C-alpha cells in the first residue's frame, strides 16, 4: 500500500516555489544567490474598486458618455481628477472620488482600482534561483535539514534558533521569554495560553516552533506577525522525537520558519528549513513510498498519536481493531519498546 511521507530529514535538497498572490514583476535573476530577506518580486495590489456611472451622472446615453470620457484604461488619476465633462453652458462633470487607476471603461461606466498597496515578495529561504515564473515569482533551491509541520500561520522569517525546551513534552510559558530572545526563532514545546503568544510578539521574536496549540488559540496565532509552525497537532501533544532531535541539535544555527498554510491539494506545508553547507547536492526527498517493514513511521491517530516507531510487519488481510473497525493494519514498535497495532491509513513514513 502506498504510504504518505512526512519529511523530517537531516540533510536534503529543498526546492520551493515562491509566488505573488497577484501578477507583478519578478526582480530576481536566474541562478542568483539569494538570502531569505531579499525581495525577488513585487506587485501593486488594489483591494477596492469604485464603479462610476458616468452616463447617469451626466444624464446622457451610455454611448454618449463614452465619447465624453477624458481618461482611458490604465490611466492613473489623482483624487478629483476629471473623468468626464458634459456639454452646455453649465456642463456637469464626473471626478475621481479617490486617487486610483482606471481598469475598465465602457457602457457609460468607469471602474477604478483604489487603495493600492505595494507587495514585496521576499525569498524566504536562502538559496539559488533555479527558475523564474514570469510575472509571479521564482523557484529557489537550497540544501539543509527539513522538518515539516502540520499547521502554519502563513508567515515566513529567518533567525537564530534558540531552544527553550529540554524534552519533547515541555510546555512553553510566557515566563520563559525574556528580552535576550528578541529576534530569535524559538523552539518551544506545547503552548497552552494566549499570554505566551503575546509575550513573544512583544519582544518581538522572528518565529516560533511548537509541538501543539489548542484550537482556541488558532485565531490569535493567525494574527501574530511572526511565523508559527506546529509540528504535531492540536490540543496538547508532545513533539515527535525525530523533529525534536533534529531541531534541538541545530540550536544556534540560522533557520527559516516557513509557516505556510497546509494545503492538501497543492502540497504546501508549514516547515522549518535549516540551511547547511554542502559539497554536493543531496538527494531530493521522495513524497510517496510503499509501506514496508523497517520503515520509521509516525502514528497520526491514537493509540500513541504523534509517536514515532518502526514498522515491524504488515498484518495479512483485514484486522479487527479495538474500535470494532476492520482495516489493513501493521504492527509498530514504538521507541518505548511498546508494540501497537495501527491501521495503515493512520501511518505516515518519516523520511
Amino acid at each position, binding site marked *: *500500500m502506498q504510504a504518505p511521507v512526512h519529511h523530517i530529514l537531516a540533510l536534503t535538497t529543498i526546492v520551493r516555489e515562491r509566488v505573488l498572490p497577484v501578477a507583478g514583476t519578478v526582480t530576481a535573476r536566474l541562478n542568483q544567490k539569494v538570502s531569505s530577506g531579499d525581495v525577488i518580486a513585487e506587485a501593486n495590489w488594489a483591494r477596492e474598486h469604485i464603479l462610476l456611472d458616468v452616463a447617469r451622472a451626466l444624464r446622457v446615453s451610455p454611448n454618449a458618455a463614452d465619447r465624453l470620457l477624458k481618461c482611458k484604461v490604465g490611466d492613473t488619476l489623482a483624487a478629483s481628477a476629471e473623468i468626464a465633462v458634459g456639454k452646455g453652458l453649465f456642463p456637469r462633470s464626473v471626478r475621481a472620488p479617490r486617487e486610483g487607476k482606471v481598469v475598465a471603461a465602457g457602457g457609460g461606466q468607469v471602474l477604478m482600482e483604489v487603495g493600492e498597496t505595494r507587495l514585496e515578495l521576499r525569498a524566504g529561504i536562502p538559496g539559488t534561483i533555479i527558475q523564474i515564473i514570469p510575472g509571479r515569482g521564482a523557484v529557489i533551491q537550497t540544501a539543509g535539514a527539513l522538518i515539516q509541520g502540520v499547521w502554519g500561520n502563513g508567515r515566513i522569517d529567518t533567525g537564530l534558533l534558540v531552544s527553550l525546551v529540554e524534552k519533547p513534552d515541555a510546555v512553553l510559558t510566557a515566563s520563559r521569554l525574556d528580552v535576550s530572545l528578541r529576534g530569535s526563532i524559538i523552539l518551544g514545546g506545547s503552548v497552552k495560553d494566549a499570554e505566551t503568544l503575546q509575550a513573544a510578539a512583544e519582544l518581538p521574536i522572528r518565529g516560533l516552533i511548537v509541538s501543539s496549540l489548542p484550537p482556541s488559540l488558532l485565531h490569535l496565532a493567525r494574527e501574530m506577525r511572526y511565523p508559527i509552525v506546529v509540528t504535531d*497537532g492540536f*490540543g*496538547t501533544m508532545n513533539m515527535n522525537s525525530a523533529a525534536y532531535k533534529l531541531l534541538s541539535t541545530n540550536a544556534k544555527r540560522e533557520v527559516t520558519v516557513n509557516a505556510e498554510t497546509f494545503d492538501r*491539494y497543492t502540497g504546501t506545508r508549514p516547515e522549518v528549513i535549516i540551511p547547511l553547507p554542502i559539497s554536493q547536492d543531496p538527494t531530493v526527498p521522495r513524497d510517496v513510498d510503499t509501506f514496508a517493514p523497517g520503515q520509521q513511521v509516525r502514528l497520526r491517530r*491514537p493509540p500513541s498519536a504523534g509517536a514515532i516507531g518502526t514498522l515491524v510487519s504488515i498484518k495479512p488481510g483485514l484486522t479487527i481493531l*479495538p*474500535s*470494532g473497525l476492520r482495516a489493513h493494519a501493521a504492527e509498530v514498535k514504538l521507541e518505548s519498546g511498546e508494540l501497537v497495532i495501527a491501521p495503515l491509513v493512520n501511518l505516515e513514513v518519516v523520511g
Partner: protein
Amino acid sequence: MPTSLVEGDSLLAVDVGAATTRAVLFDVVEGGYRFVASGQAPSTAEAPFKDVSEGARNAIENLQAIIGRALLNGSRDLITPSQSNGSGVDAFVATLSAGPTMKAVIVGLLTDVSLESARRLTETIYARIVDTMSLNDHRKSEQQIDSLLRVRPDIVVITGGTDGGASRSIQKMLEPVGLASFLMPADRRPAVLFAGNQKMESEIKSLVGSLAPLLHFSPNVRPSLETEDLDPAARELARLFVNVRKKQIKGVDMLDIWSHGHILPTGYAVGRMMRFLSKVYSSTKGILSVDIGASASVISAGFRGKSTLGVYPQFGLGENLPGLLNYTTLEDILRWSPLDIPSDALRDYLYQKSLYPSAIPATKEDQALAQAVSRQALYLAMQTARRDFPRTASTLKSGLLPLFEPILAGGGALSDSNRPGDGLLLLLDALQPIGVTTVILDQNNLLPLLGTAAARNNLLPVQVLDSGAFLSVGTVVAPVVSTTYGAPILRAKLEYDNGTEARVDVKFGSLETLPLPSGTAGKLTFQPMRGVDVGFGPGHGGTLPVSGGALGVVFDGRGRPLNLPADGVRRRELIKKWRWTLGGE
C-alpha cells in the same frame, strides 16, 4: 431473468471519494447482473499525486487481484471491450466527490423565489455558497465586485426571471459578476450556469460569455412563479461540476474519456438513483437515502417520483470538520457519546481529524468520538434536508420525519464498521425515523455507482438491487410516543413462516429486538398502548408482513423526538445499554 434479456456487458464503476477510491465490477451471473467484487485504494486527488487517475488505477489493480482477471493493460490503460480471454470490461462509469469544496455564488431576483431555487440547485453538488446576490442585496456594485474578488468563486449559479419575463434586473445584477471576472486572472475566473429566463441566452452570452471559462445553460428552474423544476438544471450543473473538476484536478479528464462522459458527482448520482427508486417503490411513504462520508453528508429522498437532494459539505467528516462547530456545540455532539469525554478532547479531535481525513478510529475512545461526531453531522444534515421535503409528505406527527420505506444508508462512517448494530443505532439516533421501516446498509457504497450506471444500462441497477448486494439490517418499529421512562408502550407478536412465534413488550426508553434472519419473512402484529402510534393511528394496532435482516425486527421505544437524559451518567449508561441490545460492546 432469462439470459436473452441481458446483453452480457460487464461494467466497471469507479467512485473517487475524498479519502478512498473504490472500483466495483458488475457482470452477468446466471442471467442477471450482479455485484461481483470491489477493490479500493487511497484517493490521490491531493498532493503529492494531484491526479485522481492514480488512485483509480490502484483501486482497479486491487480489484484485479481479487477477481483474477485483467482490467488494465501493461500501460495501465483500461482494456475495453472485454476480450475473449476474459480480460477487460465492456463499459465504464465513474462518480466523483474528491477535491476541495467548490465555492459558489448564487444570483437570483427574489430572495424567497429564484434565489431559493438557486440555493436548492447548488446544494446538489459539493459546493459551499459564499455569497448571494438578489434584488434584496443593498450593496453597491463595487462592493459586490470586491466581494467576488475576495471570495474567488469556482462557480456562479444564476437564476431569475420567468421565461420571457424580467430581463433588465438580471442584466443589472450580472454587471458585477462580469466586471469581477474581467478583473480576475483568466485561469481563476468562475464557471457560470444560467438557469433563468430562457429568452436571455444571447444577452447572457454577451454579458459574461467571453469572461467565463465555462458557460452552461439549462432550462429555467422557475419557468413560472409557481413552478420549480430543478432536475434539468441539476443535470447541467452536475456536468458543469465535472468540467470544473477537469480543470482543477488531473486525471478527471481521463476518467471522463474512459467513461465516454458517464461521470457524475457522487451525490448527484445518488439523487438520480433515488428518483428512479421512488418511481419503482410506489408507496404512500417516501424513500430515503443517507450517505455520510469525508466530503459531505448527502441526503436524498423520493416521494412518488418527486425527489430532493442535499449535498452538505459542511457536515462532511473530513477536512471541513472544524467548521461543524459553526452549526452545533461541543456539548450537543458529546451527548451521543457512551464515554465521558472532556469537550476540549472533542475540539482537539475535530481539528486533528481534519488534518487526516482518511485516518480511522483505532481505539474505543477515538471510535466513541467519531461516532458522536457522525451522529451530530447526520442529524444536522437531516434537519437541513427536511426544509425541502414536500409539505404533503406523509407523517405521523408534525415536526417529525416523514414516513419512509426503505431507508438506505451508506458512506465510510457506516460501511467501515464490523457491527451492523453500530450503524443502525447511529441511523436511529441521527435520523429518528418513525413508524415501520426497513433499513438497508449499502456496505459496498454501490448506490451512486448504480445511479451512474443506469444511464448506460437501465437493467443493471434493478437486477443488482434485487440480487442481495445490500445488507438488510432489519425492520425498525419506531412508535411516536412521549411518556415516562419504563412505561409500557407496545406489545408485538412476530409469527414466523414455520408457524412459531415470538413476543415482546416494549417499554418507553428501551430498544428491543426479535430475531428474523435475512432472507426470511414474518407477520408482525402490534398492540400499541393508548396514544402510541406506529402508523395505524394513535392506540390502534394492526398486522404487517415484515422481512428479515441482520438484526431482525428492532423496536425503538425511545420516543419521538428522541430526548436523551440531561444527566450525563444516566445518559451514558442508557447509550451503552442500547448499544449492547443491538450487538455492540
